[in-house]
């Protein structure tokens, strides 16, 4: 459907209500129509002005370009006449000492930015309803993000893409360094072990350029896989990837596994979401560098949750398949979060229907790594959700502040040896509480002074506000016992907890600083980002990366 750019305003000339006490109605109608005709002419002239303005701007920019081209041609003609074929420089100097070619052509990028919106469309945008003024809350946020970005973020996809590109350049560089260290003849094995870039490229770029060196091995592998049977083929590949520490490769296989399982009407829903989630996993994983467990788990659960009953079975079967592998993986991986084995059970991403997760017997470990997905997930689930209300984009970003205090809180719970502790977690957390961002960041910011009591009173208040009444009573009653027990026991542990928290925060801050430094350097220049990534991918020379890095920065 074409988007209407501008309209001539009074559409109907005489569809107006006539005033009552008029004797000559025909004349009245005529006069009204003529007045509307004049208004139409005025809006037509405004439309013409906009039109010619746009055309003029374009032509004006062309005139600049033409003039500069003319000057360059003149200069070139002059310099060519001055060329002397007898002046031959030494070829070695030519090759090594020359400054690298820097193109000064301007490439079109960010074409559909808000700034390039034509004037009539801007005006019609102004007449639209404004989003709620969530930015007034942003001074009160701890993480320094804008409040409105959790509701609507026009630059979300671009930021996502940019993160992904930057990460990929980093990955490629690391891979090259590893290749340098290893035997240069062992290319095939390197590609197999560091499986992630190859898998990623299958999505981003046409596969032919990367698949050429890999084909012979792939065919053998495929035949071997099929020889044992199609069902076992997936498992074998997964085991290999698990051994080789290809975590993203693992994810890709998981996505494939789930995509195979979800046949028929579900596959369409599963496909884009799993790919999106894979994209998000790439960024999410790097940002937090925590143990990743099946991030594809939530999306199939989510998309299935919209089409409920028969899918729960398949999702549960999927879960049961993953079950033996995930605990082993998380146990084996070095986790930076302090309590990976104790059941953290943070709020699962809200799109997940609680039945979907509770229906399967959940070991607590998979939901733990899931929680760092929510900050990246909120906008994609938003268009896909049906039942959940407006609050959902807000709660998932609550999850990170919740999460960092949740290990502390859970340590408390576990240290108390509360039998009801696990029950509490199970019952409190599934409804993600919107109010906690306010009390909990306050709690988190004061860990050096008071570790125990602030999280506890803050949490029961939040718990009281958010969770459904029966749970509230349970929570509040049991929670009120804690503050009494806290002061004597918590001292020794509080020191440890503070150290742990600081460790998490320090690491997060360092990573964030790295990321921010990179962002400041890169800016929003699509061309440089892409060119850098392509340079890293396609170049085979060994001295490319550092040299290029300095040059592209200018």
């Amino acid at each position: 459907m074409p988007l209407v750019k501008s309209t001539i305003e009074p559409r109907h000339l005489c569809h107006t209500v006539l005033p009552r006490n008029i004797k000559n109605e025909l004349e009245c109608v005529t006069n009204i129509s003529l007045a509307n005709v004049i208004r139409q002419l005025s809006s037509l002239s405004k439309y013409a002005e906009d039109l010619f303005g746009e055309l003029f701007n374009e032509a004006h920019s062309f005139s600049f370009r033409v003039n500069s081209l003319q000057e360059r041609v003149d200069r070139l003609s002059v310099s060519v006449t001055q060329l002397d074929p007898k002046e031959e420089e030494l070829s070695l100097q030519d090759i090594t000492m020359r400054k690298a070619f820097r193109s000064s052509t301007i490439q079109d990028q960010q074409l559909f930015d808000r700034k390039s919106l034509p004037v009539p469309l801007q005006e019609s945008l102004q007449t639209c309803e404004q989003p709620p003024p969530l930015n007034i809350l942003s001074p009160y946020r701890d993480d320094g993000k804008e409040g409105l970005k959790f509701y609507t973020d026009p630059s979300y996809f671009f930021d996502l893409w940019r993160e992904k590109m930057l990460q990929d350049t980093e990955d490629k560089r690391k891979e090259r360094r590893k290749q340098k260290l290893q035997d240069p003849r062992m290319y095939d094995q390197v590609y197999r072990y560091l499986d992630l870039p190859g898998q990623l490229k299958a999505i981003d770029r046409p596969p032919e350029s990367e698949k050429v060196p890999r084909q012979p091995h792939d065919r053998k592998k495929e035949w071997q896989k099929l020889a044992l049977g199609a069902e076992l083929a997936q498992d074998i590949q997964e085991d290999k990837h698990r051994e080789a520490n290809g975590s993203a490769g693992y994810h890709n296989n998981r996505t494939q596994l789930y995509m195979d399982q979800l046949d028929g009407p579900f596959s369409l829903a599963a496909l884009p979401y799993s790919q999106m989630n894979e994209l998000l996993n790439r960024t999410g994983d790097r940002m937090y560098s925590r143990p990743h467990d099946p991030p594809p788990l939530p999306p199939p659960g989510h998309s299935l949750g919209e089409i409920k009953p028969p899918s729960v079975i398949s999702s549960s079967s999927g879960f049961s398949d993953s079950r033996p592998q995930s605990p082993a993986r998380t146990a084996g991986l070095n986790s930076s979060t302090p309590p990976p084995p104790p059941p953290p059970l943070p709020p699962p991403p809200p799109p997940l229907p609680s039945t979907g997760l509770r229906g399967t017997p959940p070991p607590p470990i998979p939901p733990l790594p899931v929680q760092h997905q929510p900050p990246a997930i909120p906008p994609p689930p938003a268009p896909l959700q049906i039942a959940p209300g407006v609050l959902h984009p807000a709660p998932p970003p609550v999850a990170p502040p919740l999460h960092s205090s949740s290990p502390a809180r859970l340590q408390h719970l576990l240290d108390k040896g509360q039998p009801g502790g696990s029950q509490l977690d199970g019952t409190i957390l599934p409804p993600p509480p919107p109010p906690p961002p306010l009390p909990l960041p306050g709690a988190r910011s004061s860990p050096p002074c008071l570790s125990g009591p602030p999280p506890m009173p803050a949490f029961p208040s939040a718990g009281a506000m958010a969770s459904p009444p029966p749970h509230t009573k349970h929570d509040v009653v049991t929670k009120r016992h804690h503050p009494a027990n806290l002061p004597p026991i918590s001292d020794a542990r509080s020191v440890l907890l503070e150290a742990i928290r600081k460790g998490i925060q320090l690491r997060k801050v360092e990573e964030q600083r790295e990321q921010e430094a990179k962002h400041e350097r890169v800016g929003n220049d699509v061309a440089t980002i892409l060119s850098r990534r392509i340079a890293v991918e396609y170049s085979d020379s060994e001295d490319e990366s550092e040299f290029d890095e300095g040059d592209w920065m200018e």
Partner: protein
Amino acid sequence: MAGQEDPVQREIHQDWANREYIEVITSSIKKIADFLNSFDMSCRSRLATLNEKLTALERRIEYIEARVSRRITVRCIVLSDLINFVFLSHGTFVKYI
């Protein structure tokens, strides 16, 4: 009866004349709007073609500048390239400006 019809008829006739007048005006407004739209489209397509040619020229000039500054090329090749440039560029400019 005739007396009653006359002023009414006159009014109705007058009304019809007014309506025709308004109709003429509105149809010409529509023609103007149509003309503006088609002018816009054709102008944009021409500007886009021009943009393409400009970009191509710019790239070729960059290439030649790079080659000339390195002084590796043989002079006659560069000259012939330049001649092509100038010829083409003047051709396009005369056509569109």
